[in-house]
């Protein structure tokens, strides 16, 4: 049996440090925003002949007169992304600029590599990106509020707050990892974060459900003991569920095309950190809160 509440100093300190690092990185480094958010152009080319990422980057940079936002190759496909010229004011000018440059880039690549086919193309105005970001924030806040209300209604306010703390931990770590590793985030990242919000809380709820049940039966135990028992009783279930979910979403990551990989990765990270917070954080914080309330009553 794992002694989770007994070793809470270690189990809580590690995530606390990681969360702080994540917040620092999010404040000072921020996100590497993809064209979905920042606005700009993303185009995928299929190049039949041999090419290197460096060469493509150089060709694109020559046309743009500056380095592109990113050039990523996978197999015979290469995704080129670039932003707008900052001197341009209206969305129409920016869109014209992007389409004009795109044509030049396609021409330059065709001259260099022969048969080059455009397979995917996104032109996004900066205002769209801003709207998307604020929309994402509202969706997340609304989800958290509704989940908090639901848990308070079904369990108690303390459980609701602890569950939301765990969610904050999961999402902050997920965002922190993307910020620190400088992985670009696109529109699907939002869907991934919301999935993590809804799903990683499952384990926490199953544990709280057990705590709710055990509290009814056990009168002489401390809350720390109840929490520890409950986490251990549900441990196999927590791990098994995580494994089955990882089996499917992991296959999507391994087999999928570039865009779906970018969607599967944050979900995988979210499920992993979510499992940690459910097992090692939720019960401990809940019991600390309840036990301190008991002590306060006695004094």
């Amino acid at each position, binding site marked *: 049996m794992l002694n989770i509440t007994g070793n809470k100093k270690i189990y809580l300190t590690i995530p606390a440090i990681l969360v702080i690092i994540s917040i620092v990185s999010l404040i000072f480094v921020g996100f590497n925003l993809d064209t979905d958010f920042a606005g700009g152009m993303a185009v995928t080319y299929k190049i039949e002949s041999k090419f290197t990422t460096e060469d493509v980057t150089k060709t694109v940079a020559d046309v743009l007169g500056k380095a592109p936002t990113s050039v990523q190759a996978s197999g015979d496909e290469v995704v080129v992304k670039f932003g707008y010229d900052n001197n341009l004011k209206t969305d129409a000018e920016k869109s014209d600029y992007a389409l004009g440059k795109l044509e030049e880039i396609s021409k330059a690549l065709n001259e260099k590599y022969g048969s080059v086919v455009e397979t995917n193309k996104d032109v*996004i105005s900066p205002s769209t990106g801003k709207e998307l970001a604020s929309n994402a924030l509202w969706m997340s806040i609304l989800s958290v509020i509704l989940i908090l209300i639901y848990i308070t209604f079904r369990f108690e306010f303390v459980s609701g707050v602890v569950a939301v703390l765990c969610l904050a931990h999961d999402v902050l770590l997920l965002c922190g990892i993307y910020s620190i590793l400088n992985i670009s985030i696109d529109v699907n990242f939002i869907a991934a974060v919301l999935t993590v919000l809804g799903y990683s809380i*499952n384990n926490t709820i199953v544990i709280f459900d057990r705590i709710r049940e055990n509290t009814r039966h056990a009168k002489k135990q401390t809350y720390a003991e109840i929490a520890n028992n409950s986490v251990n009783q549900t441990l196999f279930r927590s791990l098994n569920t995580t494994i*089955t979910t990882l*089996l499917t979403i992991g296959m*999507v990551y391994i087999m999928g095309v570039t865009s779906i990989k970018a969607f599967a990765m944050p979900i995988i990270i979210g499920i992993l950190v979510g499992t940690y917070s459910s097992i090692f954080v939720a019960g401990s914080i809940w019991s600390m809160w309840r036990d301190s309330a008991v002590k306060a009553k006695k004094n």
Partner: protein
Amino acid sequence: MSRSIIKFAAMILVIALLSFVALYGLDLSDKFHMPGILDPDGVIQGLDLKGGSVIVYEAQVENPTEEQMNTVSSMLRTRLDSMGYPEATITKQGEKKVRIEIPSMSNPEMAADSLGATAQLQFVDYEGNVIITGNEVKTAAAEYGPTDSMGASSHYVSLEFTDEGAQKFSEATGRIAGLPQGQNFIAIVMDDTAISMPMVQTQINDTACIITGDFTSEAATNLAANIKSGQLPFTLEQVELRSVSATLGETALKTSLIAGLIGFILVMLFMLLIYRLMGLVADIALLLYVALTGILLATLHINLTLPGIAGIILAIGMAVDANVVIFERIKEELKLGKTVRAAVDAGFNRALTAVIDSNITTIIAAVILLWLGTGTIKGFGTTLLIGVVLSMISAIFVTKFLLKQMIGMNVKNLWFYGIKKAKEEVK
């Protein structure tokens, strides 16, 4: 015991039938047709799967009214139809945006310019006085044929005026024909661009006229479509333009389906390995979940996107969660020394609240994605919601039903329920 076997077999048969319906649909005589996922009219593939273009326009006014936005949508519809894209979809996005999805077109730039044109058609004289506007045009059509005295054929647009328009046109041509050389022309202007400037030699008493220019067949069609659909209430600005080639979409679909299949098999094997006979029951329920999802996708004509497929596959992993919760509980009850029948009952009853509570939070997130998300995110929210709800139903009711029949068949050896050796573990 025999009744249990019959019930068990009946459920398997039902699931097999549902799986068949999910794949091939159901046709009862001529009156009832239900498409399956393999039918062409079944699942609607999103643009990211079959290729196509997305164009998002934004109204260039503050707070357009809903009526204005509806007008814009219906005009865009007319334009799309007459440009040859009847399968395109138009959806409002937020308060001032319109999203157009055109399948199987991977070069949207030209269509985008023409679609979003204000379509303000004016006939003006040399001083810039407006003679006729697009409102006085009854119909417009793109045609091909000889347009000049030399007999050379070209693409042109023919117009038919309303009575009022014909009246004005007649008056104006009479006046302009009398003007000196260099002033005796009418400029046909579309959205501030002069398309053609025919000379006027005599008064024209006709209800029809043609616009010539250096038109390609496509340009003439687009122009006629825009004149016919009328004038937009405000300028539209294109803020998003995306296109996916059909080949990329095909690869994406194929790899996702293979990933889903492998994931599905792995989950089934995992359940079988850990929970043995109960795992088998969960696997049967999982098959039902996949079949039901297929039926729902095909009959509701849900627009399936790439993240949408990921949602379904993810839900396969989540689907067994309810069973894992229940089975772990049953194992615990068995270890306490309860009979199999009592343990199964207690396991289901005690695990039910945990299953429902944990699924509802995922449902909350899925509903928000479906409600507030746009484009592919909405697609993901839809399938995630379907997945969670269906999996909960199949995991709770179907598994319980099958397990009860299993007990009825006198399967009481604890090994079948995932417990190593009955004696050692029962405390």
